[in-house]
């Protein structure tokens, strides 16, 4: 039997509305093409450390936010698992920490991902994005195909309709 081009899908979940919509899309796609689905949340400890170094964060703030993001990660990954379960899809959730794009590149390689799904990017592309926006960097550096999910309303409707 010939295998399809997409066997393993990874969705980047970062707590934004766009990433949750991307997750819904990934769930539907994984079910239709019978692909394995993974969802990753990267606790951005790199940014935390940068904010401390640039003195935007105090030490106490860094620790508080580190705890908060850990909780966010757990909550959003649990949400992804519950959402997938409503469509009978199993999702392997991965919580990791470090630099977002570097960690996701590592997961892509380790898990032999052939499609990365990310949420909609900013409507405006600033020259600064190329250097500082994690999604922008990921889109450019991912070694696999990348799917950017747009049109939240349409995806929500599809998700609600799909039995």
């Amino acid at each position, binding site marked *: 039997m010939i295998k399809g081009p997409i066997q393993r899908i990874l969705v980047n979940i970062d707590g934004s509305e766009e990433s949750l919509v991307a997750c819904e899309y990934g769930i539907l796609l994984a079910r239709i093409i019978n692909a394995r689905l993974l969802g990753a949340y990267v606790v951005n400890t790199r940014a935390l450390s940068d904010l401390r170094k640039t003195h*935007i964060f105090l030490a106490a703030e860094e620790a508080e936010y580190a705890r908060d993001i850990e909780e*966010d990660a757990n909550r959003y990954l649990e949400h992804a698992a519950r959402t997938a379960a409503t469509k009978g899809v199993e999702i392997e959730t991965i919580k990791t920490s470090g630099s977002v794009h570097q960690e996701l590149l590592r997961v892509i390689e380790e898990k032999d991902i052939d499609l990365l799904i990310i949420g909609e990017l900013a409507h405006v592309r*600033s020259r600064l994005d190329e250097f500082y926006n994690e999604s922008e960097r990921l889109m450019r550096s991912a070694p696999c195909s990348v799917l950017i999910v747009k049109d939240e309303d349409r995806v929500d409707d599809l998700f609600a309709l799909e039995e």
Partner: protein
Amino acid sequence: MALIDKITEDVVKVPLKSTTKPEVLKELLQILVANGQVKDEASVYNALLEREGLGSTGLENGIAVPHAKTPAVDDLRIAIGIAPKGIEFQALDGGLSTLFFMILAAPDQSGLHIEALSEIAGMSRSTAFLRSLVAASTPGEVVRLIHE
């Protein structure tokens, strides 16, 4: 929605009228209140003051990033103010602060809050870019420079 998409002319004020730190916080907060982006002005103001009390968010190169985590917003909010003459904000380098980025985030959006602050920190590394922002004379010009 990405931080850059939230930077529109109606959340930018040029020049700020304030001359003191508490006034700057209030004036920036007023921008968001006027746009209906903040539910409880008093509680946010107190949260901002409390954070400043722990240590100034005035950094180097004239940039200041007052921020707070608050249930008074339901999404990430940003207000930008420019004070070309500079305001005493107890900045790290002892200089006057000219460029203010106020960031407010809901308590369950810590990841996005950090990413937004990180993007501002990235901007602050380019002194030429900061100089061009401070020289801007209208909100439209500020938005154009950031979106460029």
